[in-house]
């Protein structure tokens, strides 16, 4: 049995995983990163649009700060997020971006003086402050009060990931590529690493560690059309689920992005609309102002996606052989702007659609995009139920996004969580020694070996590719943008059947070394379980919140549903996960539930909401002199690691 020991094992070489690894290494711990692919190819590289940090240097970001960012994030989450975590996040994001600037990201900068921009379909001249010249600039994104999304032209994720991986290489952090974690090793409620399959040789290796961090990204590929990379299959989440101990949070919270191209589902960034692009219907009519007169195309993502779907249902979609779609018009931004700030979009249109977006409209449709759910963690990033297991980035339900994440808040989360969780991982390595028995390691190794042998010897059975396609179709048709009880019940029943069938997979290509069919056969049963967590959670949640929109329960119901869904899969022979709920405590909220300001507000309020509102009012009146920092401490003090506690400086405002 091949065993590799380390202090801090990080599964995932995207932005989140690499940042956790850097933190572990900085604190002097032996660290190994595992990745399916070379780290720089991780899906983080695909983020084009930007990263939210309230630097407020751009004139349209003037007046921005942590509090405004906090408000947008909580509202965006439809009050489903953990406000402690959102606080830690908004306070640390400016630091994260500045650290990345020092590590080499060529963030686009403010140019003092006049420039033309498109706002609400009109050309407007704005004047950037000369004293801000050369500081990091920002653009507009949906659901934000200020222009807060910092970017590098159109390659934000690429430049962030390259800087992060270069830093990791500089520090000598080993990245073990083409390795797949397929099970966690645990004993007495403590996690000690993972069983890992070498995707080239097929060898199984036990990576044994004090702390294990899962940073494997999202589970978008449970759906047949997704903007996500083909490797975003949620295996990290699934191996946590399969421990029967770790919990997954809010798996039903799945975001659909308004503008992926039809039919392949490749994303055109929110930056298109942020920079002034419009949505048009089959008559060339700009319909969003009719639905959302205030934020129009820049309403929150979940809202725009639903409005688009509604509009298409009214027969206003553009018919095509791939079904209806709408148009994204960026022609009004002009060639110069598109070729500089939206070049990836232009390339994608040219290569995949054969059109020039400078002159033609882009066919778009809402498409699966982001997984708010994931491995439930405490604010420290550690699983509340399985000690020594941490998670960060899209794989985690750290829970700063609740039921809808804002554009630009995700790459920001990856680095901020990487910083914060990374410190707690290092603390954990400091405080704990490695005492796992060899027999436990052997047990997990044998278990995985047996599963693979069974697959290799079975003569007849199910085709894993086909099972996957069926699962993806169920999710697409029945657990999509708009959901209803009937469809969801059907989805759950159908997934139960698939779960059974997945126990009988047989291979045509029966070799244990590099073998794509075997990879699929290992993953598909895991993916079906995850899909069931999503579908079942969605079926049980009889309200609409953020991206979870029930046609049969239109209202957000704080009275009964201001709580987080927790799923575990204790019994391997079962076809359903166990579901419990964790209440969100309004009496601790800095920002008690209110209206997001879209459409009619039909929220069923919780009795604690007015209580807490009054309490906050009283605290405010009793402390008339308190500045925003003191006020925040009075309302809800949040523990932030010492390193990241400090206040953030802003141009023209200092540390106020």
């Amino acid at each position: 049995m091949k065993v590799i020991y380390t202090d801090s094992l990080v599964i995932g070489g995207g932005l989140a995983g690499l940042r956790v690894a850097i933190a572990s290494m900085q604190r002097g711990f032996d660290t190994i990163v595992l990745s399916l692919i070379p780290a720089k190819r991780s899906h983080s590289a695909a983020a084009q649009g930007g990263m939210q940090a309230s630097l407020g240097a751009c004139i349209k970001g003037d007046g921005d700060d942590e509090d405004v960012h906090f408000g947008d994030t909580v509202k965006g989450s439809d009050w489903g997020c953990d406000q402690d975590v959102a606080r830690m996040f908004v306070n640390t994001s400016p630091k994260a971006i500045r650290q990345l600037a020092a590590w080499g990201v060529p963030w686009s900068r403010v140019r003092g003086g006049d420039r033309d921009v498109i706002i609400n379909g009109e050309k407007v001249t704005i004047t950037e402050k000369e004293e801000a010249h050369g500081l990091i600039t920002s653009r507009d994104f949906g659901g934000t009060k200020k222009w807060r999304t910092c970017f590098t032209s159109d390659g934000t994720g690429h430049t962030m990931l390259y800087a992060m991986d270069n830093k990791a290489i500089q520090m000598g952090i080993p990245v073990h590529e083409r390795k797949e974690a397929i099970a966690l090793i645990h004993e007495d409620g403590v996690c000690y690493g993972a069983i890992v399959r070498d995707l080239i040789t097929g060898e199984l290796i036990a990576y044994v560690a004090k702390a294990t961090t899962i940073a494997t990204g999202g589970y978008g590929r449970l759906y047949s059309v997704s903007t996500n990379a083909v490797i975003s299959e949620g295996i990290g989440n699934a191996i946590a689920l399969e421990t029967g101990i770790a919990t997954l949070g809010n798996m039903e919270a799945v975001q659909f992005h308004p503008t992926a191209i039809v039919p392949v589902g490749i994303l055109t960034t929110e930056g298109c609309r942020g920079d002034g692009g419009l949505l048009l219907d089959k008559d060339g009519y700009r319909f969003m102002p009719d639905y959302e007169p205030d934020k129009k195309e820049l309403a929150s993502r979940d809202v725009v996606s639903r409005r688009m779907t509604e509009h298409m249902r009214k027969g206003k979609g553009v018919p095509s052989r791939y079904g209806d779609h709408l148009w994204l018009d960026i022609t009004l931004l002009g060639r110069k702007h598109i070729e500089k700030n939206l070049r990836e979009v232009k390339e994608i249109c040219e290569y995949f659609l054969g059109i020039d977006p400078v002159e033609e409209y882009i066919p778009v449709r809402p498409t699966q995009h982001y997984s708010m759910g994931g491995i439930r963690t405490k604010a420290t990033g550690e699983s509340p139920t399985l000690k020594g297991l941490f998670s960060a980035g899209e794989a985690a339900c750290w829970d700063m996004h609740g039921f809808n994440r804002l554009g630009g808040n995700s790459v920001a989360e990856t680095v901020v969580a990487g910083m914060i969780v990374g410190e707690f991982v290092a603390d954990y390595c400091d405080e704990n020694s490695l005492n796992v028995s060899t027999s436990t390691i052997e047990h997990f190794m044998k278990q995985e070996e047996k599963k693979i042998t069974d697959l290799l010897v079975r003569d007849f059975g199910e085709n894993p590719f086909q099972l996957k396609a069926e699962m993806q179709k169920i999710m697409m048709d029945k657990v999509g943008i708009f959901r209803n009880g009937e469809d969801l019940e059907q989805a759950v029943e159908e997934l139960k059947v698939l779960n059974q069938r997945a126990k009988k997979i047989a291979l045509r290509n029966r070799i244990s070394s590099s073998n794509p069919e075997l990879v699929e056969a290992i993953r598909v049963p895991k993916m079906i379980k995850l899909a069931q967590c999503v579908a079942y959670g969605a079926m049980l949640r009889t309200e609409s919140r953020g991206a979870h929109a029930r046609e049969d329960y239109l209202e957000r119901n704080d009275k009964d549903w201001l709580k987080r869904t927790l799923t575990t899969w204790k019994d391997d022979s079962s076809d359903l996960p166990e579901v419990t709920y964790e209440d969100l405590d309004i009496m601790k909220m800095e920002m008690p539930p209110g209206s997001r300001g879209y459409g009619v507000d039909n929220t069923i309020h919780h009795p604690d909401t007015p209580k807490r509102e009054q309490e906050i009012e009283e605290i405010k009146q009793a402390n008339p002199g308190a500045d925003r920092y003191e006020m925040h401490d009075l309302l809800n003090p949040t523990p932030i690691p010492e390193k990241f506690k400090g206040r953030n400086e802003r141009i023209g405002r200092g540390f106020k």
Partner: protein
Amino acid sequence: MSDQERVLKFQIFRYNPQNKGDKPRMVTYEVTEAPGMTIFIALNEIRETQDPSIQFDFVCRAGICGSCAMVVNGQPTLACRTLTSTYEDGEIKLLPLPGFELIGDLSVNTGKFMRAMSERVESWIHDNYADEVNFERLEERMDPDVADEIYELERCVECGACVSACATKRMRPDFLSAVGFMRLARFALDPRDKRTDEEFYEIMGDDDGVFGCMTLLGCEDYCPKDLPHQTQIAYLRRKMALI
């Protein structure tokens, strides 16, 4: 896009070094073309319906991550964004990218090569204070044009097309290649990197470095991100010649 269905003929290099006794060969597969079909879509269809053992690497399938470079009808390119309709006669020959360790079929180990390249050129900001920067304060300013220029050189996706298209590299196995030069040019331009010209010379001032380049410019022809290889190599050469 034409509505006429045609049958594409894929000739694909097959060889799995993990499989003892396996021999390199070309295998032909037929696929019915669909509108908007890319090589990514076609290869997956072949894997799912005809031969589940076939190996290839796709991640983003959007021309962004650099995973999928292979030789398509003689030219190195990103397979995911190559439409099958580009090839009029419907015959498509796929070979793995030469110049890299073969993993199997169309999959090569570019990751290992690129990590070694990054280590060799020390692909990071050299500044002793980068780790001590006080991130509570305003960030160091940078001229907006300089930031844009750095980004222009940082768009490389490490796909390896330039390496496979380089005649010098074929003759000199340790030749740094265009991807390495581009990375060096990017850091040489960056005011945050405090390396001197002499230090850069140490890395690339010999025949395995920038002086070995025979200026055949396969790199420039095949770079999917249209990076300005010719001008950057000339720039580095002039800079190094002054040392």
